[in-house]
């Protein structure tokens, strides 16, 4: 597991049914592209997050495939519809096999 990986997600605490909400996610990650070389001229191996998904109560909102051209600390902003109260689940898949998860509950009333 890469060190110091910390997901941050911004989701409103409440919304009305069917409302469109904006979700912002950020995860601290080096996103080593595999293109760089260290001071001895040896290539630094690629180590990135290659997939990000957001689901709400088991239904998919967005599924992103990431390539090395995504910046350090991958940031995503997108919109979701919330039909009912429930929980957003966010997952980041690392090249090394680790999966970082974050959940956010939202109240619909």
């Amino acid at each position, binding site marked *: 597991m890469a060190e110091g990986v910390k997901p941050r997600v911004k989701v409103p605490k409440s919304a009305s049914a069917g409302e469109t909400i904006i979700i912002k996610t950020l995860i601290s990650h080096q996103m080593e592209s595999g293109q760089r070389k260290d001071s001895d001229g040896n290539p630094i191996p690629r180590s990135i997050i290659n997939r990000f998904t957001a689901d709400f109560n088991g239904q998919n909102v*967005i*599924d992103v495939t990431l*390539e090395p051209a995504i*910046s350090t600390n991958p940031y995503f902003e*997108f919109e979701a519809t919330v*039909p009912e109260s429930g929980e957003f689940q966010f997952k980041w898949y690392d090249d090394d096999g680790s999966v970082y998860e974050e959940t956010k509950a939202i109240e619909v009333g």
Partner: protein
Amino acid sequence: MKLTRRETLITALGAAAAAAIPLPALASVEDAVSAFTGGAEVGEGGIDLNAPEIAENGNTVPIEVSAPGATAIMLLAAGNPRPDVATFNFGPLAASQTASTRIRLAGTQDVIAIAKMSDGSFVRTSKEVKVTIGGCGG
């Protein structure tokens, strides 16, 4: 010829390593596009790509892409060592087919977005971004 266990292992490892490197360096924009579209014709319009005209720092260039009615949007950077940037797949709860992120650009180049519409057609757009300092850490 009789293979020892060690020789067999080494051969197998070599084959696995060769299979794991599928010529990424040769992947061109056209290859990436046809892999995404399956060779289908790509139209214009119905897709918006929002990128700065001049990016001072190629390490983080904010990009916003939006294509109402799309099921997936692929981003490409034509001038990067590898053109693939990201592919967004929108699920049933996506309120709009819009996404923003930050990407790396090696230098001044065209950023290309291709959307796959729900009816199976494809549209593309592109925008030139001038980069003052490249983002591939040379």
